[in-house]
């Protein structure tokens, strides 16, 4: 019997090594795997490269991960979120390497990794500072730059429902980076609000087929996040 459901954070994050590249889902707090991030901090892992949209705010979650010295490099589109105190301090002190990638290029580089596309051309960023050092090419009279796949060792994602095959259903705008990241890593771990019986998810509602998911852990995100679908 295929059963990807694990009961403890130790099992969920087993085997994540120093120096790994980790994709972290979510856009703002929506679809962000908070509990997995907390547990990752507790493992004491070092020298991570993390890729996600923002660089955390305040001193919790991703900010705390960086604050605790777990992160060597961050690949993101928008490091200045609402309260980027930890990021700005570490970056100013030269303790954090930053790779800025346009948000759509970030999503597409991860999608490319998931889809076996090592590199693709895009007009995004052509002629700007972010094109520096990148191959460029005129195609049909327009300039494009070559962007490369962003493959990862680990993806931490969040979803609304899962079954024991690891099929994931997202809620509202909670998909965002999650389905793409789930498909682009060697080890994908999903934090979910609800676990349901196999066969209870509608085949067309599945946002991430279980093929992409290695481990699922149920985490109650608390009363403010528990509102059921209408």
């Amino acid at each position, binding site marked *: 019997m295929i059963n990807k459901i694990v009961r403890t954070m130790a099992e969920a994050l087993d085997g994540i090594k120093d120096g790994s590249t980790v994709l972290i889902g979510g*856009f*703002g*707090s*929506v679809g962000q795997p908070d509990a997995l991030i907390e547990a990752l901090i507790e493992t004491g892992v070092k020298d991570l490269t993390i890729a996600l949209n923002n660089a955390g705010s305040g001193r919790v979650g991703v900010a705390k991960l960086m604050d605790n010295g777990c992160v060597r490099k961050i690949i993101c*589109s*928008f*490091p*200045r979120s*609402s309260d*980027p105190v930890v*990021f*700005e301090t570490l*970056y*100013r002190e030269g303790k954090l390497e*930053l790779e*800025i*990638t*346009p*948000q*759509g*290029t970030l*999503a*597409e580089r*991860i*999608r490319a990794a998931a889809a076996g596309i090592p590199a693709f051309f*895009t*007009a*995004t*960023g*052509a*002629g*700007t*500072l*972010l094109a520096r050092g990148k191959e460029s090419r005129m195609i049909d009279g327009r300039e494009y730059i070559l962007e490369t796949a962003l493959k990862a060792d680990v993806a931490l994602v969040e979803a609304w429902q899962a079954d024991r095959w690891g099929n994931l259903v*997202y*809620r*509202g*705008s*909670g*998909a*965002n*980076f*999650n*389905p*793409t990241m789930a498909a682009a890593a060697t080890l994908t771990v999903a934090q979910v609000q609800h676990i349901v019986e196999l066969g209870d998810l509608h085949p067309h509602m599945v*946002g991430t087929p279980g093929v992409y998911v290695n481990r699922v852990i149920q985490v109650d995100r608390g009363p*403010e*996040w528990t*509102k059921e679908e209408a």
Partner: protein
Amino acid sequence: MTPFTRDQMAHRAADDIPEGWCVNLGIGIPTLVANHVPSTREVVFQSENGVIGMGPAPAKGTEDLWNINAGKQLITLVKGASFVGHADSFAMIRGGHIDLCVLGGFEVAENGDLANWATGENDTAPAVGGAMDLAAGAKRLWVIMDHTTKDGRPKLLEKCVYPLTGLKCVTRIYTNLATIDVVDGKGFVVRDMAPGLSFDELQAKTAAKLHQAH
């Protein structure tokens, strides 16, 4: 002379959006544009985090924490709304399926170049978000911004000084002083101005040649 307020700038842009367009609104004044499109005119608001068909902010007590826009504000959905993930959302943007994007700006050049993400090459940790994707992908790009900086320097220029977001992408600018088209091969063409403002006064606050619309 009475400059346009933030809401007036947003309202003027909203007036120019025809029914049926799919529109992406940037953070700040651009977000206000949605409030000024009358509910009788159907415009589809897309948010780069994968929402197609955003409605106004939710009434107190009806918030759904799972539904946010690109500025991470809570939103509602309209009938006909759908969700996609980030890769598909930016495929929609990059692939030219957004009729209009409205962004804020630091500088716009007369050839349509936009600078709105960094204030210098040595900017500490510049944050680009989805602006470059939108600049490269949207069918039309309108900018809403003050005509000058707080200390009075023009933001409409012959050539941008700050690092570019996109090249030759801006097609119209709504400022607190005027509405200006960016016309290929010609430059800035003034559509209309704030009440009491003369063309020469507007030209004096602009660091590139202005043309009068015919």
